């Protein structure tokens, strides 16, 4: 990861920037990434719980944080801006969520309690859609 940032530094013009977008760990539990599930219907929404990502990815996120800290400490870049934002994925129904978790988000699971909440909410609001919200961070690193 540090090597990639060194390469970015090399190919950037003086004063150029690295934009680094990455998942943010759960502010309430930094050992995990938190993905919130909700049901939205007719301009309203209700929370259904969380989706859990496997902890096997955590070392990668921590490693990336350390790589950024290292190049800042070495004076290659300075941190111009850091911002949190939510990325949302919309699903037609619960079956689509489960198909997506099996085929794409293979490290993410839907806890039983969240599944039950989603089923209950979708029974009450048959036209509802499931939305997964995932916290991300954008770092802007300016080449020193």
């Amino acid at each position, binding site marked *: 990861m540090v090597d990639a940032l060194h390469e970015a530094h090399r190919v950037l013009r003086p004063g150029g920037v*690295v934009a680094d977008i990455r998942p943010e760990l759960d502010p309430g539990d930094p050992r995990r990434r938190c993905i919130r599930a909700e049901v939205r219907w007719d301009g309203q929404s209700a929370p259904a719980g969380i989706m859990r990502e496997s902890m096997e990815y955590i070392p990668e996120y921590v490693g990336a944080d350390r790589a950024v800290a290292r190049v800042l400490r070495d004076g290659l870049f300075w941190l111009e801006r850091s911002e949190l934002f939510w990325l949302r994925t919309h699903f037609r129904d619960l079956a689509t969520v489960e198909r997506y978790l099996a085929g794409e988000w293979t490290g993410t699971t839907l806890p039983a309690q969240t599944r039950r909440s989603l089923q209950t909410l979708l029974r009450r609001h048959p036209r509802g859609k499931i939305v997964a919200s995932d916290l991300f961070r954008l770092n802007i690193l300016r080449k020193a």
Partner: protein
Amino acid sequence: MRRMSGVRFDPEKAEIRTLLRDAPLRGSRVLEVGCGDGRLTRRILRTAGRVVGIDLDRDEITRAREFTSRLLRRRVRYEVGSAESLPFGPRSFDVVLFSWSL
């Protein structure tokens, strides 16, 4: 990230809106490292001057080329390559973007 029926990823465009607000993309030469199938690359292209997307996965690069319209292809190039050994000279870009790839 593959396209799947019944799934819409970031329909609010939060990612590109945050990028456009914070990163100097307008008219810039942008390198996207780990571009995958070009999902974000195509959104950046509407603002950036020229974009190069690289990814280690040859299949993803093939998909990125397929998914990019002929009109946009004039300003984008996709290459198979590694973030640790970028096949570009010094000072080639204004912005280097890592989206979930650092």
